């Protein structure tokens, strides 16, 4: 039996679009921020929380989350930790050089459903990167949402990302921003301790608060426990998960959590949908 491909309308899934690096900032020894511009300044048309697959010829591909909000027009941002082959090479690139882009892929935060709600952002380490797309979306559509509470934790003050923006979050009267580091330094005046130490003191309108959590695997369990003791309903919790990815379109199998493909069903998950997936966290 032959197959008529027309009925399936198959697509070319693996060809990248060549985009240009139009701005770079080095935040830490390991992390750099890039502005990426697609041909003709076309918008990526992503949702906060989605990712794309970036490639450099001769090196390979890697899935990286978008850290700008859709309200940024003509270009988008990524923030990349130098941790693997592709990111190592990416860190050597300069403004004007080109990089392959496929996407956007996966689910984003359902921001339309968040309208009118208080938004509680909980970001650990590099987890603040995908959350920045949601934070900026809320900031750029500020009257659509209630309170914006940002909890950010890092290992030490040197590893804090988006330093210029952290100051703005801190100074903005409509943002309740708290930051903590696991280990302080002589100059550090702020909180020390893990991110969960910031949760008990929060005064939350439980029925009207959405929590968005992104961080290292170890963080989720403790943050979820802390939110549970605050009695925040599971239905109000969203989280984004990381997995190995090779295709971004639900074929290569690498990102599977039980029967869920992180590249299609995630990376942003509604907590009730994954709390019974034993491999999730």
């Amino acid at each position, binding site marked *: 039996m032959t197959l008529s491909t027309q009925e399936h309308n198959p697509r070319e899934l693996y060809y990248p679009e060549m985009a240009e690096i139009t701005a770079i900032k080095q935040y830490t020894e390991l992390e750099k921020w890039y502005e990426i511009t697609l041909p003709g300044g076309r918008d990526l048309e992503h949702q906060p929380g989605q990712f794309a697959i970036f490639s450099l010829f001769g090196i390979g591909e890697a899935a990286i989350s978008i850290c700008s909000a859709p309200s940024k027009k003509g270009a988008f941002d990524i923030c990349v930790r130098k941790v*693997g082959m592709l990111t190592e090479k990416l860190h050597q690139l300069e403004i004007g050089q080109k990089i392959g882009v496929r996407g956007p892929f996966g689910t984003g935060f359902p921001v339309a459903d968040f309208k009118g709600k208080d938004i509680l952002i909980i970001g650990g380490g590099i987890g603040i990167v995908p959350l920045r797309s949601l934070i900026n979306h809320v900031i750029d559509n500020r009257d659509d949402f209630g309170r914006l509470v940002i909890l950010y934790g890092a290992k030490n003050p040197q590893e804090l990302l988006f330093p210029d923006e952290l100051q703005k979050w801190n100074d903005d009267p409509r943002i309740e921003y708290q930051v903590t580091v696991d280990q302080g330094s002589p100059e550090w005046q702020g909180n020390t301790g893990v991110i969960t130490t910031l949760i008990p003191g929060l005064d939350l309108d439980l029925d009207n608060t959405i929590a968005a959590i992104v961080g290292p695997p170890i963080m989720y369990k403790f943050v979820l426990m802390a939110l549970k003791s605050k009695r925040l309903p599971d239905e109000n919790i969203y989280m984004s998960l990381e997995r190995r990815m090779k295709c971004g379109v639900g*074929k290569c*199998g690498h990102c599977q959590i039980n029967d869920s493909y992180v590249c299609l069903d995630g990376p942003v998950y509604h907590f009730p949908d994954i709390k019974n997936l034993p491999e999730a966290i």
Partner: protein
Amino acid sequence: MKRYNLLLQNIPDFVKHLQAQGEVLAPHTKGDNSFSFDKVTDANNVILDYNRTLQSIRKFFLPPTERLLNYSLTENTFTKVEIENNQRIFLGVHSYDMQAVLKLDFNFSDRTPEVNYLKRRENCTFIGVSFEPDDFHFSRSVGITVEATEGFDIFLNRHENGYEVQVLTERGEGIIKGFNALENAPELAETNRQFKNKIKFNHNRLPEVMEQSWKSPVWDEVAKRCVGCGTCNLVCPTCYCFNVVDNVDLSLKDGSRDRHWDGCMLNSFAAVAGGENFRETLASRQRHRIYRKFKYITDKTGDPWCVGCGRCAAYCTADISIVEIINQLSDEFEQNYLRKSAAPAEQII
């Protein structure tokens, strides 16, 4: 359905008739006791009586290595790769391997249809052949009989002097047209091909067994013997996971982005940059492999995603049998979750 008889001595002529209409791919001997599906160059070398080929015909639709694109490092540009979809006739396919192709058709058209696979599936004709189940086949336990014709255009059912030819589709009729060395269809006695290897429960109960097996000690037991080599993935006709790798020419000017078969049994399969490995233990990887065949896709489609070819067990370097694993899980399920007074588990066949 039209039926004919094909005598053994006419098979080479039948192969030549097929060769006049397209590329013919059929089983050949490989080494002393293996078989391989390859392009036919000499009609006399085609083997229709065989237990199983080392690889299923999956390799023609999802090649072990496939070039996704070519690039120039000096220009930082790429060129697309043409996907060939010439007329191909697959001769001598067993029912379980045909079923595996139909399952892959689902996987590659589900949610995000992929042109690479689906284009290769165009212009294919399948001629099935019956087989005698050996110690490893257990297709009947996953709902596939030796004579299952779904997906085939023509089916050849072995009898003493040759093959009963069943012409199943218009495409099959077109293929057989003009071949005159066919006799009237034989009167065949009921075939009674028995499978020695059996899953204890009817396959429609296995998702229920899997539901209760997440924490089973069986996974750790299997992991003690498993060496994590990934052979079971490599030979499975319904495995389709892949890795994507950039390869650079020695000139350092050009290269290609290629995809290779990958296997969820390999240690690095779920590892990410930075050191996290989301399926670190062999036990968790074995469980994932078995759940991929009997739970995850099965929950969505209602069908087991294993076709009972027996390859994973036949070629396992540590003699691990998927049937044994399923039966041990079923035993546990029976002991722990079925009341002793309940009727005995339904046996198949």
